[in-house]
């Protein structure tokens, strides 16, 4: 009797009602709170993005005025950066799976964990309140460059406060993960026996803790300047607009690695599981995360090559930027080598992981183009940059997020989605994504600046192709969501370990019990990915 009862009680059905969710201290439920709120904002961001693409279908006015367009792209950026992609993988899947993968029952500081979700909600409400209060949503771009952000009549102060509060949420999550990784690993799990997802989160958390305070103080300076008229960045009041750019990118470039590293962690989990063999080059992959996090601090100046910085500063920032490519390349080659002599089961999570590699390669290689000084002078602030960072963030992190969703879906909800529909949705997403963003790279080389409401006739065709891509992408997204919701509602019960993985989350039930493990999990012999059924070398 008792055995059956414990099997049926899991973290999802142990308590009922909204209060048992929004005041929960269980890391799995907090992970899901994040997952649902993040996904909601992702869809808001997608709708704004689609509206922008519709406006750009033809030159001139299609569906909105210039000012509205400027507000739409700002809100799209703020939502996608601060409400979706920065918290995306760490706050949802990180919260849910880090403690389980470390073989423990929760994060170190569960109350702080709940607080960080509440801060996220408050920050989100701040951002949304600009739709109703003040002069409307900011029209500055998500970068809030001074002095325009000081002069414009839109509600910049509230948007900036939103980012400020969200920053705290991010810092607290990072802090919690660092403490958890140091203190709560299951006995026998040394740092070098941690799953690579944990390594990636560890590197990410350090960036969150060390870099985020800088954006916090910088954004407060904007508010101080707007409200009290203290000239910090506006030269007409004695300020320096270039100072703002430095302060902004000192955070916002490392933030790119907050977005990318957890995605790399997900890929490092998915590939060994579907190859049924150990990861190739565990240590290079783990340590390269730390190297990326470290070098990533010193490259922010590459956003400012055309701002009038000195030649020596430009050389240093350019060469450091190129150095980031090396640990990234190491990861890609090791993932590739992990497929070698595997026993590969081509399931949808694996396809998302491989699509991550393809898209991220384009994102990274175009990053080399903008890292080179001479070329950056040409393509900086053009659609080339827009294409480049969407390949990194959406094609990379976004696809890894979808991959994680399909990979851990059976573990989180204990159900399985329809695999055929998932393949079709993946195909539409991959094709739609590339039709949407590849033309932007060409537009940029042709010289179309970014943040353009209207454009010259020579840019028409490629903009139309790009907009058509956005429709295919949206169909793929809707099909994917439909398939996952159908799977949750009516899907067959999933086994505890449907993919035959060996990291610790696959040793517990699906969905996991309240305290994650009914019996102490056992570490695999000889490393976290040492598949017992595979031949040794």
């Amino acid at each position, binding site marked *: 009797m008792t055995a059956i009862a414990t099997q049926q009680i899991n973290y999802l059905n142990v308590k009922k009602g909204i209060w048992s969710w929004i005041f929960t201290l269980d890391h799995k439920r907090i992970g899901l709170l994040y997952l649902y709120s993040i996904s909601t904002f992702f869809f808001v961001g997608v709708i704004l993005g689609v509206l922008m693409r519709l406006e750009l279908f033809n030159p001139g006015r299609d569906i909105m005025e210039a000012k509205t367009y*400027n507000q739409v792209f700002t809100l799209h950026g703020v939502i996608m950066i601060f409400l979706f992609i920065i918290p995306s993988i760490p706050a949802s899947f990180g919260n849910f799976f880090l403690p389980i993968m470390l073989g423990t029952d929760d994060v170190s500081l569960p109350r702080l964990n709940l607080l960080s979700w509440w801060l996220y909600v408050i920050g989100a409400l701040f951002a949304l309140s600009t739709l109703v209060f003040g002069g409307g949503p900011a029209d500055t771009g998500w970068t809030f460059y001074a002095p325009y952000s000081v002069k414009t009549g839109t509600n910049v102060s509230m948007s900036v406060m939103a980012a400020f509060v969200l920053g705290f949420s991010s810092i607290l999550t990072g802090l919690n993960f660092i403490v958890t990784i140091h203190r709560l690993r299951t006995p026998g799990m040394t740092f070098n026996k941690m799953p690579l997802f944990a390594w990636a989160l560890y590197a990410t958390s350090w960036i969150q803790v060390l870099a985020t305070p800088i954006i916090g103080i910088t954004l407060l300076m904007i508010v101080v300047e707007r409200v009290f008229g203290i000239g910090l960045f506006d030269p007409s009041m004695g300020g320096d607009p270039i100072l703002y750019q430095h302060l902004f990118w000192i955070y916002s470039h490392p933030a790119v690695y907050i977005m990318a590293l957890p995605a790399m962690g997900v890929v490092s989990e998915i590939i060994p599981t579907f190859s049924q063999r150990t990861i190739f080059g565990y240590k290079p992959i783990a340590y390269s995360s730390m190297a990326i996090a470290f070098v990533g601090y010193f490259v922010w100046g590459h956003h400012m090559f055309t701002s009038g910085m000195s030649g020596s500063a430009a*050389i240093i920032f350019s060469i450091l930027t190129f150095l980031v490519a090396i640990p990234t390349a190491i990861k890609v080659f090791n993932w590739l080598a992990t497929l070698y002599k*595997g026993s590969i089961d081509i399931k949808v999570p694996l396809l998302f992981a491989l699509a991550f590699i393809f898209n991220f390669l384009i994102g990274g290689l175009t990053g080399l183009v903008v890292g080179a000084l001479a070329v950056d002078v040409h393509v900086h602030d053009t659609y080339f940059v827009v294409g480049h960072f969407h390949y990194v963030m959406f094609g990379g992190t976004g696809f890894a997020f979808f991959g994680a969703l399909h990979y851990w879906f059976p573990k989180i909800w204990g159900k399985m989605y329809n695999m055929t529909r998932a393949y079709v949705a993946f195909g539409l997403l991959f094709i739609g994504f590339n039709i949407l963003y590849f033309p932007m790279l060409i537009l940029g080389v042709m010289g179309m600046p970014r943040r353009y409401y209207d454009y010259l006739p020579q840019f028409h065709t490629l903009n139309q192709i790009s907009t058509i891509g956005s429709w295919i992408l949206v169909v793929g997204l809707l099909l994917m969501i439909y398939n996952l919701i159908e799977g949750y509602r009516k899907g067959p019960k999933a086994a505890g370990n449907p993919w035959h993985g060996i990291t610790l989350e696959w040793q517990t039930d699906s969905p996991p019990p309240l305290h994650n493990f009914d019996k102490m999990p056992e570490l695999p012999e000889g490393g976290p990915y040492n598949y017992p059924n595979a031949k040794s070398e």
Partner: protein
Amino acid sequence: MNASNFVEGVDFTLYLILGIAVFFLIGITFTMIYFLIRFSKKRSPVATNIEGHLGLEILWTVIPTILVVIMFYYGWTGYKPMLTAPEGAMEIEATGQMWKWSFKYPDGKVSDSLVLPLDKPVKLNLKSPDVLHSLYIPAFRLKHDVVPGGNNSMWFIPQKHGSYDILCAEYCGQLHSYMLSTVSVVGEDEYAAWLKSSPDLSNEHPGLTLLKKNACISCHTTDGTRLVGPSFKGLMGRQENVLIDGNEQTITVDRDFITQSITEPNAAITVSYQSNLMTPYKDILSEEDINKIIDYIQTLK
């Protein structure tokens, strides 16, 4: 011949990096697909645990390192000459303001597009009275930020006859994408003739000429459309609610009010418009100019 002296350095680096990028993208993608087929569950029922290979790790650390150093090097050599203009380059003051470019030549001629002689080095001194802009000439592969309060400059040698777009690459507000101009590269004689000529303005109201020249009409339309500033149409004699020292008052627009709005725009701001956006024209426009402008505004009924 390339459109400017920088095209070669930029394009060479661009194609070099793209070449390497395409090689790796195709190589990695095809290897990935090959492994997926060759080591699929069906063909390879039992996997092999291979933990790593020191030689390979060194190989794929060293090769990317060499390649990125090469890329950096060409990026740098293409960029270095952009930093310093040669002695004796013709200096033109290029002003970007919301949302118009204007160019002031050494002899005092002011134009809203650039006309340049072939093969002569040109240095643009970049000024902005309001927010950030970026002067971008895609055909020349060149852009530089225009920073208010700063003294940035850019230089180049136009090498091919033709007319090329000038765009603003740094987002600067509502009409950012309409901040367009052109650069025409012409022969020496044509250039000299252009420099001497002045546009035929005999049919244009001198007030309108001044409004155009000072970028007033980028923000204030003459046809009643609302931009970031109130339209000039029907302005004279209109009742407006304005904020003076934070107090809302209703005033009737007259010559004195318009004069004040031009010289000290922040003293009284029409309700629903933004303060601190407009540059004070106190030291830019003479009293005579302002009178011509007001005369013109009076005609816009």
